[in-house]
């Protein structure tokens, strides 16, 4: 992972220092000094060894752009992303799962068709494109919501008023992410529940005299949700990085926007640290998925 992280960005032939100055006339000595300061004058093997040593000590270096420690920048960006991604992940998982249950249980009715087709439409759209459309419609044309950022520029509100202001700013990006991920949950839940609906134990449950709703909630849904739990946890890991495009569209000061900005540099230490974080998130949430699974399904042995 570390190896990949390091060389991936080295493969791209760029000049990080050069792009810092954007073609301005800077003495060659300044450039050389910067090169030495960032260690870019060393051979690549030496750079890699430095990288390994420092990463092991959780030192991710200084950002090329802000000259601040990379880790501090990331820590500053985490809350914004967690709030945005957390809320929209939970919303899309809950609404999508519920929609999938209704669609499967009432399959081939107008309910099924309208749920499946509408979520599919959003699922098929690229999330940044959906974001831009919503942005143009609600922020530019209608003017209901702000165009970007996390707080109103120049405001110095505190406490609840600040929170409301942030929520107001979060509405459009959260809506975009929720809509974009809704379809996946709906489709997975629907197909998983349709599989379960053919099982004999549902006939048995009906034979016992259970109401249709109880057959669904007590016997069908718990079995059908197993793959959805896995999907939710894994998505949570990916969504952290998947918000890059949406955060960039709405200038949301989170990890995604930090990534987009760092790519423009390229701000190598920043990118390395971000990608390390994203990979760690995926691994952690996979682990959470496995643990939840063994807790929900008695057939999976404790790990």
């Amino acid at each position, binding site marked *: 992972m570390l190896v990949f992280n390091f060389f991936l960005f080295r493969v791209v032939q760029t000049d990080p220092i050069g792009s810092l100055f954007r073609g301005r006339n800077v003495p060659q000595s300044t450039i050389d000094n910067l090169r030495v300061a960032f260690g870019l004058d060393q051979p690549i093997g030496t750079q890699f060894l430095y990288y390994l040593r420092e990463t092991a000590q959780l030192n991710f270096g200084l950002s090329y752009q802000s000259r601040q420690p990379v880790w501090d920048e990331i820590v500053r960006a985490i809350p914004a992303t967690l709030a945005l991604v957390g809320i929209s992940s939970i919303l899309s998982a809950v609404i999508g799962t519920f929609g999938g249950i209704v669609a499967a249980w009432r399959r081939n009715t107008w309910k099924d068709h309208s749920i499946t087709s509408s979520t599919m439409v959003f699922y098929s759209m690229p999330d940044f494109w959906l974001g831009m459309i919503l942005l143009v419609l609600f922020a530019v044309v209608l003017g209901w919501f702000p165009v970007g950022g996390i707080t109103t520029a120049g405001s110095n509100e505190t406490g609840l008023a600040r929170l409301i202001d942030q929520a107001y700013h979060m509405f459009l990006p959260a809506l975009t992410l929720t809509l974009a991920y809704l379809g996946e949950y709906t489709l997975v839940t629907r197909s998983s529940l349709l599989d379960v609906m053919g099982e004999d134990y549902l006939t048995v449950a009906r*034979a016992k005299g259970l109401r249709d709703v109880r057959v669904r909630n007590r016997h069908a849904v718990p079995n059908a949700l197993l793959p959805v739990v896995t999907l939710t946890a894994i998505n949570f890991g990916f969504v952290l990085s998947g918000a890059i495009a949406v955060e960039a569209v709405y200038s949301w000061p989170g990890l995604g926007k930090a990534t987009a900005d760092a790519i423009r540099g390229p701000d190598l230490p920043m990118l390395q640290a971000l990608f390390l974080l994203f990979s760690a998130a995926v691994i952690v949430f996979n682990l959470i998925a496995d643990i939840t699974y063994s807790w929900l399904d008695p057939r999976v042995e404790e790990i």
Partner: protein
Amino acid sequence: MSDALLSIRDLSITYHSQGRAVPAVRGVSLDIEKGGSLGLAGESGCGKSTLANSILRLLPAGTEVTGQITLDGKEVLGLSPGGLRAVRWTAGAIVFQGALHALNPVQTVGDQIAEPMSLHRTVANDDAAKDRVVELLRRVGLPAARAESYPHELSGGQRQRVLIAMALACDPHLLIADEPTTALDLMVQAQVLALLDDLKEERNLTLLFITHDLSVLTYACERLAVMYAGRIVEEGPAWEVFENGSHPYTRALAAAFPTIGDVGSRMAPSGLGGDPPTPGDLPGGCPFHPRCPLAHDACLPAEPELRISGEARSAACVLV
């Protein structure tokens, strides 16, 4: 018959799949008196399981069911959804085939046995339900601790016992056993059969036993009905039908089992050639005639009706 617990009249069941009508049961009438037992035999696809599921109206939506099913004095096909739920598992319960996924994999078997009790309020509270689960498990020969097990932790025979315990949960009057011994090895089969037999005596159960295994039925049931292509082709006292079938199909089924002690029959059990007819595409006349060793011209014009073939016996064959 007034003392019949289950009475079926002219029952026809037609599945509709992809715009095609598939008749699975075609005009079946049968009666089981209180405390009696009837075995329903036939090959796969003859409609016997469809018939069993129709008694509690468990067939998929869109299935066409006509005729009359009277269970415990109630007209099942005319019941409201609430009335139907009240009849399910109390008037009649089904022992499902344990080899299938008849048990929910993520619930303990104890919870699954207790579920209908609290639903139909046959027990006062959860503690009483737990006690009854333990009592039922003991009765079917399983230790009380098994209540905490999940289905995948049990063997095939144990699962079948759990399904029997589950069926008994609300003291049903009619017990429908749908292939309860299929996919079990012979020793376990015999144990399960003996258990069902004991329970029947002990609780005065009325039993509808469904299987393709004629020898099982003659052991477990007083009367026997043989189904072919959605109709009953022969009915009568179990041993008589088995030993001395009137319908050529019954004789072919009976002959498929080797006679113990008869070396010749063990070496060459006589099977029945050909395949069962497709329900959607039955041959004209007697549906059995393409496979019947005694078929002749009289079998072709019309499908024979059931007619009296002896004391308390009937068969649907032109030769009777």
